[in-house]
């Protein structure tokens, strides 16, 4: 096995990992701040991909415009979903979970109805490949990695330094204390949903040119997100990053050497983590 081969596997793992990171970060953010396991999160990934498809392929918009618009649309959708469906059940744990499940089914079902079963495809923004030292890499994949990293850096900076970002952290740590300090919990939740949904949409948009787009993506994405955040720690962004990259690499290597069985690995990993270190790599007990 040449070095080129390993570089290829590495890049694949990195790309897969970064997309997982994007989806999982939003998912983790929602759980950490809102204490909600949002099963509908994957649907925003799927809708983001479809939005990009509609904007780029049907309306002929520039890819980046489509990406940006998709993110905005998903953010708005996220806020709507929060206001209409999640807020009424804000402090009820089990009903929230059920509502999220119901929403996932609803959105997925509607998408199936509207778009049909068939795959759609989006043309890549960066067609072409680069070659060096025997390694062949598609430009698109590298672009995805770069854009994903940019988004994650932006998110991390926002959470760390922006006022609302710090507010989100405060609410995540101790909702009551934050409220006492005058932080608007509802506004924070709204922002959280907007950002998370936008991120999920971005992930969908980024991956759309590389894989097919269909209404079944949603459940698949949220299940992956679940694996990542469990490994990395529910509610932790560094955890989502670590977990996402870990899963990406494990799957890339697994798919290359073990084939299909790799799927099981993720779930076995979840069970092991939950049994021995339920808070994940970075979470707090």
């Amino acid at each position: 096995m040449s070095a080129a081969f390993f570089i290829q596997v590495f890049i694949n793992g990195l790309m897969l990992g970064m997309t997982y990171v994007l989806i999982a970060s939003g998912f983790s953010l929602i759980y950490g701040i809102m204490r909600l396991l949002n099963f509908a999160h994957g649907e925003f990934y799927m809708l983001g991909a479809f939005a990009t498809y509609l904007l780029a392929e049907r309306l002929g918009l520039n890819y980046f415009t489509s990406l940006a618009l998709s993110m905005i649309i998903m953010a708005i959708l996220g806020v709507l979903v929060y206001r209409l469906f999640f807020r009424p059940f804000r402090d009820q744990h089990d009903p929230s979970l059920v509502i999220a499940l119901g929403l996932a089914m609803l959105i997925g079902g509607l998408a199936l109805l509207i778009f049909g079963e068939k795959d759609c495809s989006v043309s890549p923004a960066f067609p072409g490949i680069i070659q060096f030292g025997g390694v062949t890499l598609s430009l698109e994949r590298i672009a995805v990695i770069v854009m994903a990293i940019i988004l994650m850096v932006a998110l991390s900076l926002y959470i760390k330094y922006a006022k609302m970002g710090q507010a989100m952290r405060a609410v995540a740590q101790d909702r009551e204390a934050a409220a006492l300090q005058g932080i608007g919990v509802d506004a924070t939740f709204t922002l959280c949903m907007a950002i998370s949904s936008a991120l999920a949409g971005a992930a969908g948009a980024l991956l759309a040119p590389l894989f097919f787009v269909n209404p079944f993506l949603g459940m698949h994405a949220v299940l992956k997100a679940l694996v990542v955040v469990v490994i990395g720690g529910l509610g932790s962004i560094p955890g989502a990053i670590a977990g996402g990259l870990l899963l990406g690499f494990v799957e890339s290597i697994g798919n290359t050497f073990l084939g299909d069985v790799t799927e099981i690995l993720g779930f076995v990993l979840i069970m092991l983590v939950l049994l021995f270190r339920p808070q994940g790599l970075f979470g707090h007990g």
Partner: protein
Amino acid sequence: MVKKKLSSWSFFLIIFVFPFLSQDPYVLNILITTGIWTVAAWGVRLIMSTGQLTLGHAAYMAIGAYSSALLVMKGGLSFWIAFPLAGIISAIVALLIGYPTLRIKGVYFSIITFAFAEIIRLIIIHWPSLLGGYGGLAKIPAPDPFLTIRFTSRLPYYYLLLALAIVTYVVMVRIDQSRLGKIFSSIHESDTLAESIGINIMKYKIIAFCIGCFFAGLSGSFYAHYFNFTSPEFFTIWQSIYCLIFVLVGGGGSVFGPLLGSFFLTLIPEILRVAKEYEPIIYAVILILIMFLLPGGLISLPMRLRGKKSF
């Protein structure tokens, strides 16, 4: 309470009498399928009565289905022995999985149940030699004749399932009304308090889990020998979620709830004469409506209508 008993038994009576009025195989099939899911949903309800939300019930149905099929096809056993054995095997797996996982709190437990279900499903897919893989296990034999009854048409299956349903119903009601049921609900209401008065909460959570999965195994076994075919496609997260939805829509407060829930959710798409594609949407809408308007499920409707003054 008496009212509910009356409605349950009259329900069973109607089901019993129905084939005398019509033996439309299409309708019989729907009723049988609904019955299978009801038995499974009753298992979910029992598990939920200790406060555990299971998202992987389909795994135990699958274990029951495949165990039963293999015991008959490869083990040469009669269905009548394989059937209860399938339930026991599911219960044993539940014990093995439940023991380390039931001590894990809340949402993490739910995730584990779901992860385990996926693992089971993927094992089935990746073991084609034994379990038939994606294509599934075909030519599962019908139950061998019971006395003079041969399982060559839908009707014997119908009555067999009715018998299973009645037995399951009686067991569930008995548990509910017994001290065991009171212990389960105390754990659900406050496991800390329950522990402080000497209740070994792990022991009882495991009991509830194993009994619930036992019935999942039975329903899975019936499924396999009724359809003469089983496949991992029948036991995905959606099936687990459907079981949960039947309990939630019908109402977990009484044993009648899941029965009502599964019939309601099966009948609605039929009445609306819609294609299978609409099913998830209809279920989702009903589920969301119930959560908003009738959180106690359909069985809480008469109480709600009456209780405008008392509460």
